[in-house]
Every structure is written in structure tokens, then in C-alpha cells.
């Protein structure tokens, strides 16, 4: 198979690797949206990779599978047909309208969702009637929530409340710019870090911003800072590991190894998750600079600059992703500012101005 662009997707140990019987996979397609969506529902857990080839998108699994074509082939401009190849691969034959593929997975039952992006010339005419659907999505992530209160101000301000407050203000401002804004949480509840990133990926967001307030034992610490991801793995290292891992899948000892001594799959999974954001580091850093500059101008508080750190919530985001530490609520002066609506608006407006540079469309 000639791999033009291997899509590092879904590597994992499948318990099914030893299964003698093919794993039933129900295949369904949906052409009602802008993209052509193919949903593979697996009867058991299995590890799959999505590989883009000339004229095809292939889903290669590490165990034998038995695809059930369901309602059959859609035959639209993006996806012409699909079918099995060998006993471990499903081939999606793409049409002229096909541009690229996005994927994500769902659990219970195990599903792999393959979104084939592109254009359907036949359906181009009614497009103006549905401009709402094409609005880009920005996902805002109010940090912490529920029992995870985050930082605490000396006068009682809680980070989790302030992050949600700022996110709601920013949402209103961004939606005026013609984007759809999704909040990872719009209530006071616990939300795992990986779920926050997954929401951004699931919504195919063009931007992911995690909003936080900082705290330090140094009461003098003050000011805002904007982060983008520091990746621990270089591309070269990751590729090497990916190669090793692919070989490991050829070995029947893979699952046994997983429970004994070395953790190759663990490391691989994380590095690939990390790599997702690697493709967007340049865009992320540029936007971080723009946001930081606006925050400095708007707040007049100390410029703490643009920084990089391996923030868990930014890993795995398949779009430019930033984490804003809007200020130190451990600092009494800054905490007091954040109790003022006008100041909160000012901070939200600063972020919105910077984001406008990427939402502005020709």
C-alpha cells in the first residue's frame, strides 16, 4: 500500500488481536451533512489506523473484521463506494469532491467516525440556503469546574467561576464575528481534561482556547500569560516510535507484552496524541502572540509573555490551541479587578480582537 499521508489515528492494543473469528463491523454512511460521514461500529475493541491513499481512504485494523455494509453505498461526489480488502481493511473509494479526512472515535459501543470532507457539486446550489451550517466553530474551555475549583483568591474568588464567566462573555463577542462558539462546559461541573480537547475535535473547531486564572505562593505574581503546547517529543522520535509500534502489531506477543514489562503502546499513544497539536504549533504561537499583545494593551498589567508548557488539555487538539492564564487571583489587587464586570469585559474584548484576525473571512 502506498501511503501518501498516514493518518496517525487510533493505535492501541486490541484485546481482539488474538480472536480467531472476524469481528463484526457495521458500516453506515450519512450524506446529509456537509461532509460524508462513515460510521464503523465494532462489536469488540480493536485497534485501527486510518491511511489516506490515492483515491482511497483505508481503515486498517489489527484483527480480522467482518464488515456489514448496512444500507449500502452512498455514491456521492465525495464517497463513491466502500468495501473490504483482505480480512483486516475497509477501503473507502473517494470521489472527485473528496478533499480530506477527519476521524474521531466514540465509546459504548466502540465506533470510529470517519468524516470525508469535500464538496458535492451536485449539491452546491442549495448551499447558500444553509449558511448556518458552514459557520466555523470555536471551542472555549472554562478551566476546572465542580469540586475542582482551581485557584482561590484571598477574598474568595474561585477560578472555576471566573473562567466560566469569562468564557460566556467571550462567546457573545465571538459570535458577533460570525462564528459558532461551543463551551466545553456551561455549568459548574467536573470535566476531564481529555474530554475538553475531544469536544473541540468532535466539533471540528478551528480554534480551541482554554481559559484559566493563575495562582502563586508569591503574592506579588501578577499579569496575564498565553500558552501554547510544548511538545516533549520531536517528530523524528515520534516517527521512530510509530514505526516500532507498527512492527509490534505484527507480533502476536503484543498484548502479552502490554501486561508484562515494557509500555511501548502507552508511549506511542501519547506521542501520537501529542503530535496532533504539533501540526498547529506555528498557528498556535502566532495567535498566542496576538492575544498576549491585546491583553497587555487592554489590562495594562505586567506582560508575562507567550510561553510554552506541556499542558495536558492542549495535547491532542487537532486545531490551533491555546491556554490563557488571564491573571493571578492569588494577587489581591488582580483578584479585585476580576470582580469588576467592566474589567472582565475588557479582558474578553481583548481576546476577541485577537481572535478576529483568524475569523475574518474574505
Amino acid at each position: 500500500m502506498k501511503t501518501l499521508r498516514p493518518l496517525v489515528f487510533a493505535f492501541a492494543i486490541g484485546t481482539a488481536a488474538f480472536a480467531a473469528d472476524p469481528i463484526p463491523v457495521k458500516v453506515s454512511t450519512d450524506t446529509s451533512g456537509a461532509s460524508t460521514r462513515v460510521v464503523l461500529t465494532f462489536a469488540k475493541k480493536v485497534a485501527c489506523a486510518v491511511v489516506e491513499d490515492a483515491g482511497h481512504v483505508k481503515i486498517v485494523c489489527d484483527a480480522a473484521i467482518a464488515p456489514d455494509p448496512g444500507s449500502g453505498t452512498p455514491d456521492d461526489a465525495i464517497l463513491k463506494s466502500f468495501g473490504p480488502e483482505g480480512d483486516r481493511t475497509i477501503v473507502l473509494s473517494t470521489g472527485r469532491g473528496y478533499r480530506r479526512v477527519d476521524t474521531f472515535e466514540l465509546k459504548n459501543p466502540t465506533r470510529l467516525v470517519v468524516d470525508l470532507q469535500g464538496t458535492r457539486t451536485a449539491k452546491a446550489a442549495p448551499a447558500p440556503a444553509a449558511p448556518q451550517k458552514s459557520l466555523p466553530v470555536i471551542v472555549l474551555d472554562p478551566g476546572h469546574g465542580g469540586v475542582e475549583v482551581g485557584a482561590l483568591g484571598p477574598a474568595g474568588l474561585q477560578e472555576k467561576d471566573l473562567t466560566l464567566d469569562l468564557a460566556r462573555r467571550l462567546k457573545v463577542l465571538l459570535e458577533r464575528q460570525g462564528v459558532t462558539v461551543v463551551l466545553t462546559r456551561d455549568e459548574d461541573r467536573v470535566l476531564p481534561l481529555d474530554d475538553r480537547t475531544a469536544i473541540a475535535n468532535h466539533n471540528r473547531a478551528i480554534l480551541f482556547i482554554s481559559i484559566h486564572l493563575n495562582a502563586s505562593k508569591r503574592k506579588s505574581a501578577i499579569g496575564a500569560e498565553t500558552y501554547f503546547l510544548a511538545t516533549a517529543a520531536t517528530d523524528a522520535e515520534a516517527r521512530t516510535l510509530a514505526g516500532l509500534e507498527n512492527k509490534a502489531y505484527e507480533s502476536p506477543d503484543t498484548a502479552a507484552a502490554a501486561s508484562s514489562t515494557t509500555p511501548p503502546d502507552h508511549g506511542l499513544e501519547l506521542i501520537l496524541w501529542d503530535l496532533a497539536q504539533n501540526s498547529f504549533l506555528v498557528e498556535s504561537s502566532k495567535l498566542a502572540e496576538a492575544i498576549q499583545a491585546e491583553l497587555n494593551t487592554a489590562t495594562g498589567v505586567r506582560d508575562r509573555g507567550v510561553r510554552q508548557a506541556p499542558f495536558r488539555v492542549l495535547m491532542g487538539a487537532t486545531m490551533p490551541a491555546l491556554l490563557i492564564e488571564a491573571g493571578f487571583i492569588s494577587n489581591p489587587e488582580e483578584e479585585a479587578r476580576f470582580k469588576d464586570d467592566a474589567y472582565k469585559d475588557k479582558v474578553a474584548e481583548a481576546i476577541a480582537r485577537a481572535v478576529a484576525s483568524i475569523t475574518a473571512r474574505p
Partner: protein
Amino acid sequence: MTRRFFVPPAFLLVALLPACGGQNKTAPEPVPAATQPQGSASQSQDAAPLAKASVTIYFPSTAGDTLAAETREIVDTKRPADRGAQILAALLDGPRTEGALPAVPPGTTLRQLWVRDDGNAYADFSEELLGGATGGSADEILTVYAIVDSLTENVPAIRRVGILVGGRERATFGHLDLSRPLPPDLTLAATAKATE
């Protein structure tokens, strides 16, 4: 497009634990918690005074968002795990200059330190490490990198450091990804090194 798929996060630990018994060549014997080696017995048998080595220990700086360096003397043992344990003992002991703050909460101890042949070290701290946090990423970053940078700076065999608490892997303390060993962040170390 890069996604996670069914891998339990506790994987590393599960994989690591069997290696702790020294069955695995890549996992040298762990060094007992927070013990200053009484001498590198495994290295030198003679009664001559043990050589000392000067090392750099990083603490959160009082001046800002950087790490302040302090110099310490340790027994010049070459075994990475012995050397690393001495480094962490000095770190847990706390700073001695005005310009530095404790890197970890009071009472934090080192349970074990492993150094593997692949350059990864795993430092397992007591639960106190998680206590008393302000909840801000600023302090979390400085605590994590005081540990990581102190080890990687002084022990050539250590290139990345994984941090465990109470024998368990943590995906995060709240912000940073701790599910795998971290390389040092060289941008945090202040240029001027304070001395003892």
C-alpha cells in the same frame, strides 16, 4: 486526527512495577526513599574519604517565574540512581538562600527513584507532594521542573523524568501532562546561580 483509543492510563505503572524487582535489565534497582547514601558502597570499598561533587539544585525563584539555582555538595557517586536520590534529597531538604522557595510542600518524601537505560527516570514521591497547592499552573510548573531540571542537569544518564505520587502514575496534577517522562525546560532556569 490523532486520537487515543482504549489505552488505560495506568498502563505505564502496570508495566513499570514488574520491572522494579530488578528482573528487567532496563530498570536498575530502585534506590530506597530519600536516603542520602552513606557512601557509594557498590562503587568503592576502600576507607578513603569519598569524593564530593558539586551539583546544581533548582528551586522556584522568589523573583519571578523562574527557577533559582543553588549549589550543593553530594557524594560523587556515578550510579545514576544513587546520584539522583542525593539530588532529590537536597531538593526536598529545601532552599538555603533568600532568593529561592521550597519546590515541594513540607513533609514530602521520595519513595523511590528508578533510572532506566533509556534515559527515563521515575521519581515516586509521597502524597504530600500534592498537598498545599495553590491550584495555579505557575506553581505547578515550577514544582515539576524543579524536580525535572535538577535531575537532568546533574545526572547525565537522566534525560527525562516521570513523576509518580504514592506509587501511582498521575495523568496530571491539574495542568501539565505527567503521564510520561518530561524533558527539562531549560528556559526556566535563571541565568545567575545563587550559591550556598
